[in-house]
């Protein structure tokens, strides 16, 4: 599947492989790969949708500064793919919008304090 990628590895990896999934699809990585490198090498071109406009994004700086590569890893949102090393069995999903920390989905109205208590 890496033949579909615009990226190529500088060195052919050794025989050992790490298997992970992206959006449920299995991809193979070399031990020591960052998740971002593994996704790019596997031909993944969009890894998240922005919270502001919903536009697609992919890893950019590859060094932890730009936060363009955030993905959901094993159920945890907003993980930096470029700063995370691949692990066997890791389940990676596209980060869609902002992480939800609060149970309720966003804000409706502005409530307003009535000072009644």
């Amino acid at each position: 599947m890496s033949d579909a990628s615009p990226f190529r590895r500088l060195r052919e990896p050794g025989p050992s492989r790490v298997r992970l999934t992206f959006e449920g699809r299995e991809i193979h990585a070399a031990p020591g790969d960052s998740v971002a490198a593994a996704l790019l090498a596997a031909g993944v071109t969009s890894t998240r949708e922005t919270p502001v406009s919903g536009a697609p994004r992919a890893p950019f700086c590859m060094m932890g500064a730009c936060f363009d590569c955030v993905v959901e890893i094993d159920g945890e949102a907003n993980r930096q793919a470029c700063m995370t090393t691949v692990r066997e069995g890791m389940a990676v999903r596209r980060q869609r919008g902002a992480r939800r920390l609060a149970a309720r989905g966003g804000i409706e109205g502005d409530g307003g304090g009535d000072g009644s208590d």
Partner: protein
Amino acid sequence: MRADIAIVGGGVVGLSLAYGLRRLGRAVLVLDGGDGDFRASRGNFGLIWVQGKGVGAPHYARWTRRAAAMAPDFAAELAEATGIDLALRQPGGFDYFTDEAALAAQVTAMEGLRAELGGDYPFEVVGPNALRREMPEIGPKVVGAILGHEDGHMNPLRLLRALAQGVRHGGGRVETGVRVTSIAPLAGGGFALALADGREAAAEKVVLAAGLGAAELGPQLGFKAQVRPQRGQVLITERLAPFITRPSATIRQVDEGGVQIGASHEEVGLDDRETVAATAALARHAVEVFPLLARARLVRSWGALRILTPDGLPIYHRSETHPGAYLVTCHSGITLAAVHARLLPLWIEGAEGAPDLEEFSERRFAIQTAA
């Protein structure tokens, strides 16, 4: 380089003033420092904050409220002129309390200010139940909050960019990466400014809006320019779905989703580094107010230096020894941006509608010393 008015300092204070003077048709030259300088406008918290300001100094409360009231129209004007959305929101702001006595003391202080202002000072106390109805995520230690109806926030970096762009597109000149080494009056009137790179500038009037740099240049123009640095550290989390309804002086969710947490108040001189101790204290406070933030990831922290006067209020001062020279400094450049752009230029020009800023002059410190 020649201009009607040279403004030393291209932060949000200098640029607000430059933008307003440009709108009056004056040729302005802004002399801005470089990235190695202390730049408060690039590190601040981004609040339009009214509540609690001016206790014991009602003129400062009035000035601040005027700025907050003008903010929407000013933001709309900048958006129209530059296409930059400042993300201004003024839903009112909360001051959270975890201690009943501290809450009561602050309410007493603000009621005193309300009386001094003739009863016109909109705030209310929001009890713990009402607070949790609005935001169920509020932690159990919070006993209440003061809701100031005039408070708000904006994206301060976009304000800075919009002002710079507005000045430039309006025909003003902004020179960055320069250092003014001396300012001297010219024989025929006006001022000559010498730059470290060997260049010179001349202007009829000169405004010192150089933040901490005013301490060095001020005496050359007859100003005492008593300003000192105070470090504030700020944290910001990953982008989160919106859950914080209103900004507070310490926690606000920015338009792009990050929760910004601040700020420390540290008297450490010219040192804008971050420290683990301050970062931890800020995070602890934020988690006390919103326990779910313990699960949020911090993505950045930074330190910046406030520019504080002896009483914390702005200084607007016309030089007595050097007519045509003005000192403008404050630590609330975001809150006051609208009055700095719309009213301060009238004061500089002695035009109709100019605000009376005598109470903000440096003379107040001399009086205090004599008393």
